[in-house]
């Protein structure tokens, strides 16, 4: 477009399909050329994945918000007995999914929960078994690297055996959360009680080795530096080179409301959200999909993000809990029609997919 010098060199690299370095990534974060970044990311998006935009008709199931980790950036986790704490029974989980199944297009579940201090791995496993038996047509994607590591810790099983048992119970893919920023400095300050950077990456590596696909994410806009964002992206890219098991990358802007960081951190601007989306697309050259998660971005920003590198807009969700506890202003669910309209207005082709990005329906 209209850039000179270092940025022009980066643009040439992208056009030639060359990999960007850490230094390139840092320059992109410093450059302030939002439209240029968007156009470059959009060029790559078109080349890698064309005009289809993926979405799911899904239901989020958050089994409990009682959590022993109590990360500083989280507004969802609570101590047992605290006001607003809950732990679903299996019947309650089944009832929620039955309610969501009134939508004939519902295709799967996204299960992510707190690290309950007294629940056993067997108990978590029984949710997967029961939901899989009762709703055999619904895919089950669930548990972040953090939860998987927790299951290994409490059961004495290896990560690999935890994953094998979940797979046998019906789990088809692993959720992308819990990566936050994959540096020990940030994790020690914000979430010292949960999986380390190395452990999170190890869960993903092990899952990929078993043929279980996972997602990846980055929670940004809190105490991390821009260089740490780049470092995080490069760690994901390196593992993806090794395994190829990541399906989509999700940028999570940190929502400070009701968290321990509320007083010190201001919410990211849409400006930061869009540049981070575009830069992620440019650095993660071995990821096919980049998700614009509308719950956090808001629907208007998520739609625009489709021209900043994104080709995935997440799902209908049914009822979102985790981020609404952190003051998310977006609705708790979207109608499929709304998602289709959002994608079409952007001149793209909506495709409903399952948790492994198999296309179920293309909306022509």
């Amino acid at each position, binding site marked *: 477009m209209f850039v000179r010098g270092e940025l022009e060199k980066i643009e040439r690299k992208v056009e030639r399909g060359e990999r960007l370095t850490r230094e390139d990534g840092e320059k992109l974060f410093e450059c302030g050329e939002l439209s240029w970044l968007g156009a470059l990311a*959009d060029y790559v998006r078109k080349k890698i994945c064309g005009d289809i935009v993926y979405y799911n008709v899904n239901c989020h199931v958050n089994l409990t918000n009682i959590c022993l980790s109590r990360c500083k950036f989280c507004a969802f986790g609570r101590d047992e007995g605290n006001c607003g704490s809950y732990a679903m029974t299996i019947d309650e989980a089944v009832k929620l999914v039955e309610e969501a199944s009134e939508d004939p297009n519902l295709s799967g579940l996204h299960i992510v929960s707190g690290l309950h201090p007294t629940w056993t791995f067997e108990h978590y496993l029984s949710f997967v078994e029961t939901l899989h038996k009762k709703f055999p047509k619904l895919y089950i994607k669930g548990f972040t690297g953090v939860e998987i590591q927790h299951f290994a810790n409490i059961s004495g099983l290896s990560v690999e055996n935890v994953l094998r048992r979940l797979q046998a119970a019906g789990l088809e893919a692993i959720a992308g959360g819990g990566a936050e920023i994959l540096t020990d400095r940030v994790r020690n300050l914000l979430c010292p009680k949960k999986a380390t950077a190395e452990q999170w990456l190890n869960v993903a590596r092990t899952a990929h080795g078993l043929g279980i696909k996972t997602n990846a994410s980055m929670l940004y806009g809190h105490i991390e530096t821009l260089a740490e964002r780049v470092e995080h992206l490069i760690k994901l890219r390196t593992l993806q080179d090794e395994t190829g098991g990541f399906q989509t990358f999700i940028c999570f802007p940190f929502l400070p409301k009701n968290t321990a960081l509320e007083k010190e951190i201001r919410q990211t*601007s*849409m400006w930061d959200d869009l540049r981070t989306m575009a830069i992620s697309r440019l650095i993660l050259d071995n990821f096919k999909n980049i998700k614009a998660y509308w719950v956090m971005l808001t629907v208007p*920003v998520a739609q625009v993000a489709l021209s900043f590198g994104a080709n995935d807009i997440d799902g209908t969700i049914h009822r979102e809990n985790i981020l609404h506890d952190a003051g998310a202003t977006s609705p708790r669910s979207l109608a499929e029609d709304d998602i289709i*309209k959002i994608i079409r207005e*952007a001149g793209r082709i909506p495709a409903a997919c399952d948790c492994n990005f198999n296309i179920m329906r293309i909306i022509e």
Partner: protein
Amino acid sequence: MTDLDSAKEKISSGSRLNRAEILALYEDNDLLYLGESARRMKERKTGKQVFYTVNRHINLTNVCSANCPLCAFQCHSGDNRAFTLDLNDVEKILRESAQIKDLSEIHIVSSLHPDKDFDYYVDAVKLVKKILPDVGINAFTPVEIINFAKISGKTVDEILRTLINVGVTSLAGGGAEILSNRVREIICPKKCTADEWLDVMRTAHGLGLRTNASMMFGHIETIEERIDHLLKLRDLQDETGGFVAMMLFPFHPDNTELGKRFNLRRVGSWEDLKMLALSRLVLDNFDHFKAFWVMLTLPIAQLALNFGADDMDGTIGEEKIIHAAGAKNSTGITREKLRAIISEISYTPVERDSFYNKKFSSSQS
């Protein structure tokens, strides 16, 4: 050469787009190209400056004889939502407003009350002038001006002269909707016609009264009708030069008869930004474009500054019309927050009066 090619060539050489080229740009749907081109045009006109104003909206009444299907604000006098401010109420608001530091503008837009006479509106303006003698009064859309002419038996020219004499400094840009009689028959059949709207503006400009302009899109209009609307504004601006700023209103369908009848949904942020950028490129003779944050949401209004807008409008105080149609933003914003939003993207916030003269506010840094 295709229309798209010639459009792009004209954009890079800075020459005027024709109808076919505008349509080709719309259909090409290249959001970032349009945005970047519009941003460059904005920077040619106003550099790195982004304007805002400290203003206060006053809606005198929502009781309306026009009952446009597009509107969620208006109601009948018996409705439990109905309100009509008397002069004491107006005075109270103005006394409150007098406390607002560096207030630049009072913006008065209201419905067409079936029983209030022209004097009621004139008295309201006189009151503003009395209590806030140094504040700009941006008031009344052409739709209201035509109504004043009807209820008073005066000509538009006489109405405008009267309003100028009592203190109105500029006319509001609303009520243009889509300047096509086909569309107006459906969305606002009792409102002034397209030509009447343009005539009021022409007359006002002739009297030295400057005005804003607007477009409400995303309902039942065709893309061609949007483009013709823009061309009508461009033609009149060539003739008079009296338009100060343009603003786009994406239609908010909630609680409107039009929304229900045609099962309409609000267009997305994509369309908001695309129409903003395209309009900026078409209206090459307009100096200023507003990103009206009440309609766009603050994040998209901020992004709009990269898509051709150069004005965040105002702090507003209390906005009722768009909120009646389901806009979800808070009803006011502080000057500090507006300035922060502008600075965050490396533009320079400039506090302005109604005519984009720079104000030196004591709290500016």
